Protein backbone atom coordinates (compact mmCIF):
# COMPACT_ATOMS: atom_id res chain seq x y z
CA UNK A 1 0.00 0.00 0.00
CA UNK A 2 0.97 3.65 -0.26
CA UNK A 3 2.31 4.94 3.05
CA UNK A 4 2.08 8.60 3.97
CA UNK A 5 2.28 10.87 6.98
CA UNK A 6 0.69 14.16 7.90
CA UNK A 7 2.55 17.33 7.05
CA UNK A 8 3.63 19.46 10.01
CA UNK A 9 0.64 21.44 11.24
CA UNK A 10 2.32 24.88 10.85
CA UNK A 11 2.91 24.09 7.14
CA UNK A 12 -0.75 23.16 6.69
CA UNK A 13 -1.90 26.26 8.57
CA UNK A 14 0.33 28.44 6.40
CA UNK A 15 -1.08 26.87 3.24
CA UNK A 16 -4.63 27.83 4.23
CA UNK A 17 -3.82 31.32 5.54
CA UNK A 18 -6.73 33.68 4.92
CA UNK A 19 -9.14 30.87 4.06
CA UNK A 20 -12.50 31.06 5.81
CA UNK A 21 -14.22 27.98 4.46
CA UNK A 22 -12.38 24.72 3.98
CA UNK A 23 -13.11 21.12 3.09
CA UNK A 24 -10.91 18.46 4.67
CA UNK A 25 -11.35 15.29 2.65
CA UNK A 26 -9.85 11.94 3.58
CA UNK A 27 -9.36 8.72 1.67
CA UNK A 28 -10.52 5.39 3.04
CA UNK A 29 -7.95 3.23 1.27
CA UNK A 30 -4.14 3.13 1.75
CA UNK A 31 -3.78 6.27 3.86
CA UNK A 32 -6.58 5.13 6.16
CA UNK A 33 -4.78 1.84 6.76
CA UNK A 34 -1.51 3.64 7.55
CA UNK A 35 -3.43 5.95 9.90
CA UNK A 36 -2.55 9.11 8.01
CA UNK A 37 -5.66 10.19 6.10
CA UNK A 38 -8.74 8.21 7.07
CA UNK A 39 -11.88 9.38 8.87
CA UNK A 40 -10.18 9.54 12.23
CA UNK A 41 -7.31 11.63 10.91
CA UNK A 42 -9.71 13.96 9.07
CA UNK A 43 -11.53 14.58 12.36
CA UNK A 44 -8.27 15.12 14.27
CA UNK A 45 -6.78 17.51 11.72
CA UNK A 46 -10.04 19.45 11.45
CA UNK A 47 -10.21 19.72 15.22
CA UNK A 48 -6.59 20.92 15.39
CA UNK A 49 -7.22 23.52 12.69
CA UNK A 50 -10.32 24.77 14.51
CA UNK A 51 -8.42 25.07 17.79
CA UNK A 52 -5.58 26.92 16.02
CA UNK A 53 -8.02 29.28 14.30
CA UNK A 54 -9.86 29.93 17.55
CA UNK A 55 -6.58 30.59 19.35
CA UNK A 56 -5.56 33.14 16.72
CA UNK A 57 -9.03 34.68 16.59
CA UNK A 58 -9.54 33.61 12.98
CA UNK A 59 -12.86 32.64 11.45
CA UNK A 60 -12.68 29.16 9.92
CA UNK A 61 -15.56 26.96 8.83
CA UNK A 62 -14.45 23.38 8.14
CA UNK A 63 -16.43 20.71 6.33
CA UNK A 64 -15.23 17.14 6.82
CA UNK A 65 -15.68 14.08 4.67
CA UNK A 66 -13.94 10.89 3.72
CA UNK A 67 -14.39 9.08 0.42
CA UNK A 68 -13.55 5.56 -0.60
CA UNK A 69 -10.66 6.26 -3.00
CA UNK A 70 -9.55 9.72 -4.04
CA UNK A 71 -7.49 8.28 -6.89
CA UNK A 72 -10.71 7.32 -8.72
CA UNK A 73 -12.91 10.02 -10.16
CA UNK A 74 -16.15 8.10 -9.71
CA UNK A 75 -15.75 8.30 -5.91
CA UNK A 76 -14.74 11.96 -5.96
CA UNK A 77 -18.00 12.90 -7.68
CA UNK A 78 -19.70 12.27 -4.31
CA UNK A 79 -18.08 15.42 -2.90
CA UNK A 80 -18.46 17.70 -5.94
CA UNK A 81 -21.04 19.89 -4.17
CA UNK A 82 -18.82 20.32 -1.11
CA UNK A 83 -15.79 21.12 -3.27
CA UNK A 84 -17.79 23.83 -5.02
CA UNK A 85 -18.92 25.24 -1.68
CA UNK A 86 -15.48 26.00 -0.18
CA UNK A 87 -12.48 28.21 -0.91
CA UNK A 88 -9.88 25.46 -0.49
CA UNK A 89 -9.86 21.66 -0.33
CA UNK A 90 -7.31 20.08 1.97
CA UNK A 91 -6.78 16.56 0.74
CA UNK A 92 -5.62 13.86 3.12
CA UNK A 93 -5.03 11.41 0.28
CA UNK A 94 -1.70 10.41 -1.22
CA UNK A 95 -0.22 12.47 -4.03
CA UNK A 96 -2.21 10.43 -6.54
CA UNK A 97 -5.49 11.31 -4.87
CA UNK A 98 -4.61 15.00 -4.63
CA UNK A 99 -3.79 15.10 -8.36
CA UNK A 100 -6.94 13.20 -9.29
CA UNK A 101 -9.00 15.75 -7.36
CA UNK A 102 -7.13 18.65 -8.98
CA UNK A 103 -7.68 17.16 -12.45
CA UNK A 104 -11.33 16.45 -11.78
CA UNK A 105 -12.12 19.85 -10.27
CA UNK A 106 -10.02 22.24 -12.41
CA UNK A 107 -11.34 25.39 -10.75
CA UNK A 108 -10.89 24.19 -7.20
CA UNK A 109 -7.83 24.88 -5.07
CA UNK A 110 -6.61 21.53 -3.76
CA UNK A 111 -3.77 21.42 -1.22
CA UNK A 112 -2.10 18.29 0.19
CA UNK A 113 -2.17 17.66 3.92
CA UNK A 114 0.07 14.57 3.70
CA UNK A 115 3.55 13.77 2.53
CA UNK A 116 3.36 10.62 0.41
CA UNK A 117 6.35 8.59 1.45
CA UNK A 118 6.62 5.09 -0.03
CA UNK A 119 5.00 1.82 -1.06
CA UNK A 120 5.34 -0.51 1.87
CA UNK A 121 3.90 -2.86 4.42
CA UNK A 122 2.88 -2.59 8.07
CA UNK A 123 5.48 -4.26 10.33
CA UNK A 124 3.45 -3.96 13.50
CA UNK A 125 0.92 -1.48 14.85
CA UNK A 126 2.31 1.99 14.19
CA UNK A 127 5.29 0.93 12.06
CA UNK A 128 5.59 0.67 8.28
CA UNK A 129 8.51 -0.22 6.01
CA UNK A 130 9.28 0.42 2.37
CA UNK A 131 9.15 -2.65 0.13
CA UNK A 132 8.82 -1.54 -3.49
CA UNK A 133 10.25 1.28 -5.62
CA UNK A 134 8.02 0.51 -8.60
CA UNK A 135 11.04 0.00 -10.89
CA UNK A 136 8.84 -1.52 -13.60
CA UNK A 137 10.74 -4.80 -13.98
CA UNK A 138 10.31 -7.02 -10.92
CA UNK A 139 13.35 -9.09 -9.94
CA UNK A 140 11.91 -10.70 -6.80
CA UNK A 141 11.99 -14.23 -8.28
CA UNK A 142 15.75 -14.01 -8.60
CA UNK A 143 16.33 -12.87 -5.02
CA UNK A 144 14.04 -15.10 -3.01
CA UNK A 145 11.27 -12.55 -2.72
CA UNK A 146 13.45 -9.84 -1.19
CA UNK A 147 14.02 -6.75 -3.30
CA UNK A 148 17.66 -5.59 -3.28
CA UNK A 149 16.73 -2.42 -5.14
CA UNK A 150 14.36 -1.29 -2.42
CA UNK A 151 15.79 -2.87 0.70
CA UNK A 152 19.53 -2.56 0.09
CA UNK A 153 20.50 1.02 0.96
CA UNK A 154 22.95 0.93 -1.96
CA UNK A 155 20.51 -0.79 -4.39
CA UNK A 156 23.14 -3.47 -5.04
CA UNK A 157 22.17 -6.26 -7.43
CA UNK A 158 25.37 -8.17 -6.62
CA UNK A 159 25.85 -8.01 -2.88
CA UNK A 160 26.58 -7.89 -0.10
CA UNK A 161 28.94 -4.98 0.19
CA UNK A 162 31.61 -4.73 2.86
CA UNK A 163 29.31 -2.79 5.14
CA UNK A 164 27.20 -5.74 6.25
CA UNK A 165 27.85 -6.81 9.85
CA UNK A 166 25.79 -9.18 12.00
CA UNK A 167 22.96 -8.96 9.51
CA UNK A 168 22.73 -5.17 9.81
CA UNK A 169 23.40 -2.45 7.23
CA UNK A 170 26.22 0.02 7.89
CA UNK A 171 24.05 2.89 6.65
CA UNK A 172 21.79 2.60 9.71
CA UNK A 173 22.62 -0.52 11.75
CA UNK A 174 20.00 0.24 14.37
CA UNK A 175 17.07 0.28 11.95
CA UNK A 176 18.18 -1.43 8.74
CA UNK A 177 18.68 -5.12 8.15
CA UNK A 178 21.19 -6.04 5.46
CA UNK A 179 19.02 -6.93 2.48
CA UNK A 180 21.71 -9.26 1.20
CA UNK A 181 21.81 -11.19 4.47
CA UNK A 182 18.04 -11.56 4.14
CA UNK A 183 18.42 -12.68 0.53
CA UNK A 184 21.06 -15.25 1.50
CA UNK A 185 18.94 -16.62 4.38
CA UNK A 186 15.85 -16.81 2.22
CA UNK A 187 17.57 -18.49 -0.76
CA UNK A 188 19.15 -20.99 1.63
CA UNK A 189 15.76 -21.76 3.17
CA UNK A 190 14.18 -22.47 -0.22
CA UNK A 191 17.18 -24.40 -1.58
CA UNK A 192 18.16 -21.85 -4.22
CA UNK A 193 21.57 -20.67 -3.03
CA UNK A 194 22.95 -21.48 -6.47
CA UNK A 195 21.23 -18.30 -7.69
CA UNK A 196 23.93 -16.36 -5.90
CA UNK A 197 26.52 -17.84 -8.26
CA UNK A 198 25.00 -15.86 -11.10
CA UNK A 199 26.32 -12.37 -11.78
CA UNK A 200 23.37 -10.03 -12.22
CA UNK A 201 23.97 -7.61 -15.11
CA UNK A 202 23.40 -3.88 -14.71
CA UNK A 203 19.69 -3.20 -14.44
CA UNK A 204 17.81 -1.86 -17.42
CA UNK A 205 16.08 1.17 -15.93
CA UNK A 206 14.08 1.99 -19.06
CA UNK A 207 10.83 0.53 -17.59
CA UNK A 208 11.37 2.79 -14.58
CA UNK A 209 11.02 6.58 -14.56
CA UNK A 210 13.72 7.31 -17.10
CA UNK A 211 11.12 7.77 -19.84
CA UNK A 212 8.99 10.13 -17.77
CA UNK A 213 5.62 9.32 -16.17
CA UNK A 214 4.53 5.80 -17.04
CA UNK A 215 1.18 4.68 -18.34
CA UNK A 216 -0.43 1.28 -18.71
CA UNK A 217 -3.09 0.81 -21.36
CA UNK A 218 -5.22 -2.36 -21.41
CA UNK A 219 -7.19 -2.36 -24.64
CA UNK A 220 -8.97 -5.57 -23.63
CA UNK A 221 -10.77 -3.81 -20.78
CA UNK A 222 -11.18 -0.37 -22.31
CA UNK A 223 -14.70 0.85 -23.00
Amino acid sequence: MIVAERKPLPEIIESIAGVKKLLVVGCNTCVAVCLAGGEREVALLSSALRIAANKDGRELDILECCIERQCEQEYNREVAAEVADVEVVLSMACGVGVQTMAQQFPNAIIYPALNTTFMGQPDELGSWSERCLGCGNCVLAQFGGICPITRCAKNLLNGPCGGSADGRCEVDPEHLECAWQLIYDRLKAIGQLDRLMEITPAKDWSPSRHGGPRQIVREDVQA
Partner: protein
Amino acid sequence: MQARKRVVMGCARSAGVAMQNLRATGWSLPDDVEWVEMPCASAIAELHMMRAFESGAENVLVLSCHHGACRSLEGDERLARRVTAVQALLTEIGIAPSALVHQRMAPNMASDLRTWIASLGAPQPCLAHEQDAGEA
Protein backbone atom coordinates in the same frame (compact mmCIF):
# COMPACT_ATOMS: atom_id res chain seq x y z
CA MET B 1 -14.88 37.80 27.98
CA GLN B 2 -15.38 34.06 27.67
CA ALA B 3 -15.62 32.19 30.98
CA ARG B 4 -12.84 29.80 31.83
CA LYS B 5 -13.60 26.16 31.09
CA ARG B 6 -11.84 23.01 32.23
CA VAL B 7 -12.63 19.40 31.38
CA VAL B 8 -11.95 16.30 33.46
CA MET B 9 -12.34 12.87 31.84
CA GLY B 10 -11.77 9.64 33.65
CA CYS B 11 -12.38 5.96 34.06
CA ALA B 12 -15.62 5.07 35.85
CA ARG B 13 -13.87 2.39 37.91
CA SER B 14 -11.35 4.69 39.58
CA ALA B 15 -11.99 8.39 38.96
CA GLY B 16 -15.74 7.79 38.73
CA VAL B 17 -15.86 6.10 42.14
CA ALA B 18 -13.65 8.80 43.67
CA MET B 19 -15.93 11.46 42.22
CA GLN B 20 -18.98 9.77 43.79
CA ASN B 21 -17.18 9.62 47.12
CA LEU B 22 -16.33 13.31 46.93
CA ARG B 23 -19.90 14.20 46.13
CA ALA B 24 -21.11 12.07 49.06
CA THR B 25 -19.14 14.40 51.34
CA GLY B 26 -21.08 17.37 50.00
CA TRP B 27 -18.30 18.55 47.69
CA SER B 28 -19.30 19.69 44.25
CA LEU B 29 -17.36 20.36 41.08
CA PRO B 30 -16.33 23.96 40.45
CA ASP B 31 -18.71 25.64 37.99
CA ASP B 32 -16.07 25.84 35.26
CA VAL B 33 -15.26 22.13 35.35
CA GLU B 34 -17.04 19.61 33.14
CA TRP B 35 -16.80 15.96 34.21
CA VAL B 36 -16.94 13.22 31.56
CA GLU B 37 -17.10 9.66 32.83
CA MET B 38 -15.79 6.95 30.52
CA PRO B 39 -16.11 3.16 30.87
CA CYS B 40 -12.30 2.84 30.71
CA ALA B 41 -9.35 5.18 30.15
CA SER B 42 -8.70 3.28 26.92
CA ALA B 43 -12.02 4.70 25.67
CA ILE B 44 -10.63 8.24 25.88
CA ALA B 45 -9.57 8.81 22.28
CA GLU B 46 -7.30 11.55 20.96
CA LEU B 47 -10.36 13.10 19.37
CA HIS B 48 -12.17 13.31 22.74
CA MET B 49 -9.28 15.30 24.17
CA MET B 50 -9.07 17.51 21.08
CA ARG B 51 -12.83 18.09 21.15
CA ALA B 52 -12.51 19.25 24.75
CA PHE B 53 -10.01 21.93 23.70
CA GLU B 54 -12.09 22.70 20.63
CA SER B 55 -15.11 23.32 22.85
CA GLY B 56 -13.14 26.02 24.65
CA ALA B 57 -11.44 24.17 27.50
CA GLU B 58 -8.18 25.78 28.55
CA ASN B 59 -7.08 22.75 30.53
CA VAL B 60 -7.95 19.08 30.34
CA LEU B 61 -7.27 16.44 32.99
CA VAL B 62 -7.53 12.78 31.98
CA LEU B 63 -7.59 10.09 34.64
CA SER B 64 -6.79 6.41 34.37
CA CYS B 65 -6.29 3.59 36.85
CA HIS B 66 -2.81 2.82 38.10
CA HIS B 67 -0.52 0.79 35.88
CA GLY B 68 -1.44 -2.87 36.37
CA ALA B 69 -4.82 -2.05 37.93
CA CYS B 70 -6.76 -1.53 34.70
CA ARG B 71 -9.66 -3.96 34.39
CA SER B 72 -9.14 -3.86 30.62
CA LEU B 73 -5.45 -4.60 31.25
CA GLU B 74 -3.73 -1.72 29.46
CA GLY B 75 -6.13 1.23 29.45
CA ASP B 76 -3.67 3.47 31.28
CA GLU B 77 -0.87 2.67 28.84
CA ARG B 78 -3.06 3.33 25.83
CA LEU B 79 -4.20 6.62 27.33
CA ALA B 80 -0.60 7.62 28.14
CA ARG B 81 0.41 7.12 24.50
CA ARG B 82 -2.59 9.11 23.28
CA VAL B 83 -1.87 11.92 25.72
CA THR B 84 1.67 12.13 24.35
CA ALA B 85 0.28 12.32 20.81
CA VAL B 86 -2.24 15.03 21.70
CA GLN B 87 0.38 17.00 23.61
CA ALA B 88 2.56 16.92 20.46
CA LEU B 89 -0.39 18.18 18.42
CA LEU B 90 -1.08 20.96 20.95
CA THR B 91 2.58 21.99 20.71
CA GLU B 92 2.24 22.23 16.93
CA ILE B 93 -0.81 24.45 17.43
CA GLY B 94 1.12 26.64 19.84
CA ILE B 95 -0.60 25.54 23.05
CA ALA B 96 1.52 24.46 26.00
CA PRO B 97 1.44 20.65 26.33
CA SER B 98 0.92 21.15 30.06
CA ALA B 99 -2.66 22.16 29.21
CA LEU B 100 -3.33 18.41 29.05
CA VAL B 101 -2.53 16.45 32.19
CA HIS B 102 -2.71 12.69 32.77
CA GLN B 103 -2.92 11.27 36.29
CA ARG B 104 -3.18 7.66 37.42
CA MET B 105 -5.35 6.96 40.43
CA ALA B 106 -7.24 4.42 42.54
CA PRO B 107 -10.91 4.66 43.60
CA ASN B 108 -9.87 5.64 47.13
CA MET B 109 -7.89 8.70 45.99
CA ALA B 110 -10.76 11.19 46.28
CA SER B 111 -8.59 13.65 48.15
CA ASP B 112 -5.94 13.62 45.40
CA LEU B 113 -8.65 14.07 42.79
CA ARG B 114 -9.96 17.15 44.57
CA THR B 115 -6.42 18.57 44.72
CA TRP B 116 -5.76 17.89 41.03
CA ILE B 117 -9.00 19.55 40.00
CA ALA B 118 -8.28 22.55 42.20
CA SER B 119 -4.81 22.97 40.73
CA LEU B 120 -5.80 22.26 37.11
CA GLY B 121 -4.84 25.31 35.10
CA ALA B 122 -2.98 27.07 37.90
CA PRO B 123 -0.86 29.10 37.37
CA GLN B 124 -2.81 30.95 34.72
CA PRO B 125 -2.35 29.58 31.15
CA CYS B 126 -0.28 32.60 30.00
CA LEU B 127 2.20 32.00 32.81
CA ALA B 128 2.23 28.29 32.01
CA HIS B 129 3.17 29.17 28.41
CA GLU B 130 6.14 31.19 29.58
CA GLN B 131 7.15 28.49 32.02
CA ASP B 132 7.06 25.83 29.30
CA ALA B 133 9.05 28.00 26.93
CA GLY B 134 11.64 28.55 29.65
CA GLU B 135 11.92 24.85 30.35
CA ALA B 136 12.35 24.11 26.63
